[in-house]
């Protein structure tokens, strides 16, 4: 399925990460944005609303982030591709409805432009403190897909990818960004509409009266219909059977959670998207994601100059975590270096998948020194001594 041209601003532009995100959404066919203004995510809303008229998209500013995500879920069930954009405090308020989105298997995209936390923290400075929250923040057991681009260009492409994944697996997808990526202006190439591949909504084909909202296919993902098409379906946040009716027993709960978890876990290999750089001869591997990875590249160049065999893995999809890749690597490399803009979150995952094989160094960045590649270099050097 191709996008309709209206949304696609084909050409080369200088866009900030936030603007690129809005463009990506429009190109992906997103026509419903609900949000509550919170820095540093404003520019997405601005860009979207400026373009809203041309593509007759809808923007509504709700009274708080709770209702924001509720409205997005509603819009998605009404057949629109919907998304919201927020920052840490907003994401915390959305947690309950991320759970509902998972339970109702509603495709939608949540963009979280991270800022320093906890609580109000430092509103206008970058952070990577919400990485674990994005995965574990809502109550109950579920799996979710989290994407973390590292440039405006990638923000554009990955936003489209996020919509595709959310439609394919019928799950909310979180795009993590951060203040500096959001405000960074770079060249963004937007291809013509016919070059952009979109995942169509997995729409039910069979006869109307046979439709069961949660009767899943082999890939554990049930097909979907939209409100107002005359299927007269019922869906509930309670544990439900394939009719969508609440069923209060252990078996049904097992079935639900099992499927919600497995429909992602079974396809980790298809979902995982990582960027590997000269791993062939690497003895030291830097595992990074998002904005920090840009600093890593600088450090790697320098280290290679010094004749140290370093490589890097960049997580474009942070969740589900690429366990296998890290495990494989841990067997052949000397050490991992994990630079993060927080006090150690993905570090824990790397430790988990390392199986005690390689050394692990954590490089803790404060938002002030994010440009500075020396901490990584020093870590590399100290490991070669």
């Amino acid at each position, binding site marked *: 399925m191709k996008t309709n041209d209206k949304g696609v601003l084909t050409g080369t532009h200088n866009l900030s990460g936030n603007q690129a995100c809005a463009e990506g959404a429009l190109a992906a066919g997103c026509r419903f944005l609900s949000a509550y203004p919170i820095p540093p995510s404003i520019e997405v809303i601005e860009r979207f609303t400026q373009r809203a008229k041309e593509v007759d998209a809808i923007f509504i500013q709700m009274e708080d982030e709770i209702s924001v995500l509720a*409205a997005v879920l*509603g*819009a*998605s069930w009404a057949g629109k591709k919907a998304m919201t954009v927020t920052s840490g405090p907003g994401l915390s308020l959305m947690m309950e*409805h991320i759970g509902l989105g998972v339970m109702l298997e509603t495709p939608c995209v949540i963009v979280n432009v991270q800022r320093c936390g906890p609580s109000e923290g430092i509103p206008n400075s970058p952070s990577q403190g919400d990485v674990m929250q994005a995965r574990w923040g809502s109550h109950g057991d579920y799996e979710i897909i989290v994407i973390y681009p590292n440039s405006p260009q990638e923000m554009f492409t990955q936003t489209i990818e996020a919509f595709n994944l959310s439609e394919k697996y019928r799950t909310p997808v979180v795009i993590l960004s951060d203040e500096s990526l959001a405000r960074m202006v770079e060249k963004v190439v937007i291809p013509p509409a016919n070059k952009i591949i979109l995942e169509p909504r997995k729409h039910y084909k069979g006869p109307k009266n046979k439709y069961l909202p949660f009767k899943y296919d082999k890939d554990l993902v049930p097909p979907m219909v939209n409100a107002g098409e005359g299927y007269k379906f*019922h869906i509930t946040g309670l544990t439900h059977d394939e009719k969508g009716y609440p069923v209060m027993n252990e078996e049904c709960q097992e079935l639900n959670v099992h499927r919600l978890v497995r429909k992602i876990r079974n396809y980790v290999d298809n979902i995982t998207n990582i960027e590997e750089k000269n791993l062939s001869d690497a003895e030291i591997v830097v595992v990074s994601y998002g904005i920090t990875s840009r600093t890593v590249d600088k450090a790697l160049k320098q280290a290679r100059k010094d004749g140290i065999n370093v490589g890097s893995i960049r997580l474009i999809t942070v969740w589900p975590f690429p366990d296998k890749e890290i495990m494989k690597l841990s067997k052949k490399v000397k050490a991992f270096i994990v630079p993060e803009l927080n006090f150690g979150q993905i570090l824990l995952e790397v430790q988990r998948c390392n199986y005690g094989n390689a050394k692990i160094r954590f490089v803790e960045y404060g938002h002030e020194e994010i440009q500075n590649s020396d901490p990584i270099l020093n870590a590399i050097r100290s490991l070669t001594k």
Partner: protein
Amino acid sequence: MKNVKHPMDFYLRMDRMPHIWCTGCGIGLTATAFVAAMEKAKLDTNKVCVVSGIGCTGRFAGYIKLDSFHTTHGRAIPFATGLKLANPELKVVVVSGDGDLISIGGNHFIHAARRNIDMVVICVNNFIYAMTGGQVAPTTPLTAYTTTSPYGNFEPPSNIPQIAESSGAVYVARWTALHIRRLTNSIFEALNKPGFTVVEVISPCAQYYSRINRLGDGLDMMKFYHENSQIKHWEPTDNLYIDYQKEIIVGKFVDRERPTYSESYKKWLAE
């Protein structure tokens, strides 16, 4: 007898019967009135969505054979807002309880009213949180006993029509569960009126409210409410507070015109 069809079957999910509501509960009657109103309104049933929150009334959506959504606690209205804005053809009806709409959902209630989003809100008010076992609600009348007000409630109750009116609803009515015909009529009017319309239904909670306060079974309470209700159309909403086991003023209090959200949004886009 098996293959005899009840006229309401078309609107109900008969495969889910029996429903969970206790005998003598007013929610069933509300459903009856709603279905009757639907028949009268002759709307395209494919285009009508019912959204409910959590609680006894929250189960309403589950028994109505339309596109029906059972959402999280208090968030029925924003969910419905999303449905309505994304697909303006839909007719969205929110049916939920007092705790769900006025307590945790209060913010969404007043804001949807302020925006005048085109939806019908049917609020079944049984003065208590019934699903969780009878806790005090913002609508519990003074001195009434509940499990979390074991010494009698001392918080003045909310006046739902007044909140609705002062935050901008275009249609506000209140009936008790036994005023079936008038209730049906009100829901019918609400369905046909563009904008944010509110219908409050005073319903007995036979399980908790009446048991704790010793008010007899559901039917006694329903009769009591019906007999002690006084129809005063256009009564100023200030006077609509409900005292414990006292007279209840019912009727149609507000019916006014305001541009709906979608209308003003379109107008703004056109500029």
